[in-house]
């Protein structure tokens, strides 16, 4: 025989499903306390740990006992309630929803619940405390927790419409906290702070450690939470102590978005060795979402043409511009003469809205000074290397395209014609690049290989064999496993079939390796023409000495690259995969 549900509904103030009813007398004794509770609805089941207490009922004639339940969680919204099942020591106890069962919510529900006479005992006391809660009123009420918990959210960055990436810290007296939940409208999401990505916060420990009797220096956390935001509703954290006390901490969504938000999220993270994989396995999907949000629909801009580029160019040279513009002056000066402008087109993609004015002025003077026609694309947003290259590709009219960094400078005037000729001569070489030299004449790039970096999860990172050394006495086209995106030439058809660079890679690394590896799927490989050399004034490596956020972006890209290619590359001959 089953019991019965009299009243039920969801209360936003308590962040829980509240019910009262009765259970048959023979099953009722073992119910009070924290029990696994399932609610069976028409469209599904909601399960969580609930608080069950007895209520005093005069109307049951000794056949049953009153029961009240507090079940924290989101508003299930799964249709009509059918039954409730409480997991007790002797097996499940079931209460049915009947025609007489009343459904109500919020204040009315709380009023009805408070009218119940809760039986004495700890479970009853706890339930009374829950029902007495005033609910979140927009203020921080963590001071109610008797100084047991110190907590703060530093940044809450929205991911998609309902997700959040939370960074903050929590320090508490040992075993003081029962649960931490993120609440928004009808949603209540348990925050597993213990298993979040933990960060050292010595500053927090120094301030609160003694008072809270804690020595936990890793009290910072970075925590992606999905489906936790009710759009338009306020958001707060609810912390419940083991004594049933509850305090609230308002969460303000960060005004930051896009790259700034990614940067903020990655600012305090410095995983090494074994931590790297576990951090990015948790964080990676959120970063992917943030990056996709960042790029969604953002391709607006405008083109200004200086001079008339040929209608059917042999090659479209695509140069993304970000930061320093003065390199452009030297680059264009080096393109001058030798009929470059009659054969090829030069497309600069200004990926730096703040520099649009200066770039326009410079392009104007460069065209008029050097006579090289320039197609200048001014992007409305800063998107990063891959999207900027892809925008350039969408503009390109050339039979071939050359992706070129702004800090790569020609030596011989015919270098581009020679790389294009390589492609024409050897079609199975899909992507060809030059020998790249540093300013002192040593090798910057002659094709890329891979090597695992133990401090970075043992993932495979592209390497530049021979870098910094004098060039070997090689000549002609030499096959390479992959080549750098600093200067690569391919047919436009190939570039378009590959969809350009994968924009999932943030800012600019690994996308060149990824593109070359994807090109293999279309049956073409890479090569370096050692007879064609250019200077590449490569910026200092991001892997050392960079700001932490930038290094973490590189690690994110490495994570993506590793997931996609790690196993296949490790199986290739000549790739040393073990760190």
């Amino acid at each position, binding site marked *: 025989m089953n019991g019965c549900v009299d009243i039920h509904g969801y209360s936003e103030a308590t962040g829980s499903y509240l019910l009262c009813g009765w259970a048959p007398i023979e099953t009722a004794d073992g119910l009070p306390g924290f029990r696994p509770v399932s609610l069976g609805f028409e469209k599904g089941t909601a399960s969580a740990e609930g608080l069950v207490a007895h209520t005093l009922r005069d109307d049951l004639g000794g056949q049953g006992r009153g029961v009240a339940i507090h079940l924290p969680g989101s508003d299930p919204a799964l249709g009509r309630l059918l039954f409730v099942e409480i997991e007790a020591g002797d097996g499940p106890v079931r209460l049915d929803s009947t025609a007489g069962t009343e459904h109500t919510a919020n204040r009315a529900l709380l009023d009805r619940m408070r009218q119940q006479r809760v039986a004495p005992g700890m479970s009853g006391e706890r339930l009374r405390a829950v029902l007495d809660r005033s609910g979140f009123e927009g203020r921080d009420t963590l001071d109610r927790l008797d100084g047991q918990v110190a907590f703060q959210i530093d940044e809450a960055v929205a991911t998609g419409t309902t997700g959040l990436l939370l960074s903050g810290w929590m320090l508490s007296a040992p075993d003081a906290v029962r649960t931490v939940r993120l609440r928004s409208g009808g949603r209540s999401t348990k925050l597993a702070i213990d298993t979040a990505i933990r960060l050292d916060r010595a500053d927090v420990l120094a301030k609160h450690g003694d008072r809270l009797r804690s020595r936990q220096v890793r009290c910072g956390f970075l925590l992606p939470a999905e489906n936790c935001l009710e759009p338009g509703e306020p958001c707060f954290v609810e912390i419940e102590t083991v004594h049933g006390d509850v305090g609230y901490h308002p969460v303000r969504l960060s005004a930051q978005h896009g790259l700034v938000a990614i940067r903020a999220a990655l600012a305090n993270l410095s995983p090494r060795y074994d931590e790297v994989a576990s951090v990015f396995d948790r964080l990676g999907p959120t970063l992917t979402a943030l990056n996709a949000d960042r790029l969604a629909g953002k391709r607006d801009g405008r083109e200004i043409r200086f001079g008339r580029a040929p209608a059917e160019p042999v090659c479209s040279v695509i140069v993304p511009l970000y930061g320093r513009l003065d390199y452009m002056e030297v680059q264009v000066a080096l393109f001058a003469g030798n009929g470059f402008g009659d054969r090829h087109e030069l497309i600069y993609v200004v990926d730096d809205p703040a520099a649009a004015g200066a770039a326009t002025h410079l392009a104007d*003077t460069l065209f008029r000074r050097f006579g090289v026609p320039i197609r200048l694309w001014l992007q409305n947003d800063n998107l990063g290397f891959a999207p900027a290259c892809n925008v350039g590709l969408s503009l390109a009219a050339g039979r071939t395209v050359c992706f070129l960094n702004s800090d790569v400078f020609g030596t011989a005037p015919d270098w581009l014609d020679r790389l294009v000729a390589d492609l024409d001569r050897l079609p199975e070489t899909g992507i060809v690049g030059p020998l790249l030299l540093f300013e002192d004449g040593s090798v910057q790039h002659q094709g890329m290989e891979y090597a695992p970096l133990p401090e970075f999860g043992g993932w495979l990172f592209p390497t530049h064999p021979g870098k910094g050394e004098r060039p070997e006495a090689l000549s002609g086209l030499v096959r390479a496993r992959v080549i750098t995106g600093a200067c690569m030439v391919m047919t436009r058809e190939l570039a378009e079939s590959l969809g350009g660079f994968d924009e999932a890679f943030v800012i600019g690394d690994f996308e060149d390796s990824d593109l070359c590896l994807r090109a293999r799927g279309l049956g073409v490989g890479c090569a370096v023409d050692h007879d064609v050399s250019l*200077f590449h004034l490569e910026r200092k490596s991001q892997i050392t000495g960079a700001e932490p956020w930038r290094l973490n972006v590189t690690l994110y890209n490495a994570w993506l690259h590793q997931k996609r290619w790690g196993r296949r590359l490790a199986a290739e001959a000549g790739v040393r995969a073990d760190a």
Partner: protein
Amino acid sequence: MIGTTADTLMSAVQADGERRLPSVLVMTHSHPKLTRGGAEISANTLFRELKARGAKAWLLGCSSPKSEVRLGATLTQPYGPDDYVYHPNAPFDYFKFANPDPKFPDELAELVAELKPDIVHSHHFVRFGVEMFSAIRRGWPQAKIVLSLHEYLAICNHHGQMMKTVTYRLCEKESYSACAACFPQHGERDFFLRKRYLQMFFEDVDLFISPSRFLAERFMAWGLPEEKLAVLENMPPERSGSPFAAEWDRRAMSGAPQAEAPQTPPKPVAMPMFSGGTRFVAAETGAGSKKRPSAVRPLKIGFFGQMSPLKGITVLMDAARRLKAQKIDNLVIEIYGDYSSQPLEFQKVVTEALEEAGENVVFHGAYDNSQVNALMQRIDAMVIPSTWWENSPVVIQEAFTNGKPVICSNIGGMAEKIVHGVNGLQFEVSRPASLAEMLADLATKPGLLETLAAGVRPPPTAAEMLNRHLDLYDAVIA
């Protein structure tokens, strides 16, 4: 062509009538009517001498901030039909000498296409921008392009001095890392690009003229091709108003011996800058160097020029102090120059040194360049104690014009022009003790001054220098 001064080039035909004169566009970074620096003066003399010889010549100089701007006009002709002024339309890039002015290349190309000069001889690339050479090439490909080098500016970002920025030590050779160390705001890559940019445009230059072998060698080490370098002094400054110049010119042309200096006592043109001391200019009664009776009046050593650290004024003052301490009292250092444009801190240093100097230092203050020959006639020898390399200081030519030997630092362009013991003496750069020793020798060794004065050869006249320029033009056209 380095190692081949113009003297040894076949000076084919001296007579004007037999010589086909090339047409020359002379360019200078500042119009000579507006400023009077060394490059402007050389350019102007060259232009004037070419015209005087009957050659077709034009002058193109940059405007000054005070120039009248004609709205929308890039090139104007305020001074006459063969005389052009360029008004830059954009702030100049003094790091890699790029001229962002979008109008200039076309304007310059059109001008040379119109003038069709055989030679474009530029006395600088600043303000025009090094891109000028490709514009000339584009506008009138037949023109040969000649560039006079006036200092180490293309090599060294430190005002072309090849001195370290902080320590002011002499720099022997540029490198990306050494230059970046001098200029922490620029990286090695910036210096790489700077050099690439300059050399890329220098490729269009057919001949570089260096006024000293030393400077030419520095540019060769920097990467200019040997066969494009020639050593030839700048055109000499105007000598009008000098009673001696005509004499020199006559002697130089005829090989006659030096004339006696006139006896009229010249006056300094400026008063000393302070009047508290006792070192006013004494009324002049002396005569030319050869008349100096060493027992009668002390030896006069002249310093002419800016009283700056680079010109070695403190080295000189220190040497004077040492001479006084050694009780060598038959020698007076006469300073013609100015330090009012020096940094305040250094002005204080010079003022104090002058205050403390003994009677063997006489400070005359600034002088007008038109008086330089007259003033030099009053002294016995010149001192050039520069602490930097120098290029080919014009004061050497002026000293030689006046038959005066020169005591100079033993480096760079100075050391090249002064042969120790022949037409002057060399001392160890930046070492006052070494300078004091040389001056003491001069004051105490009988006959030394006379020997050195006899060793001075007159510099070529403007007409001779023009011939040498024409020889070089012929060689480059051929």
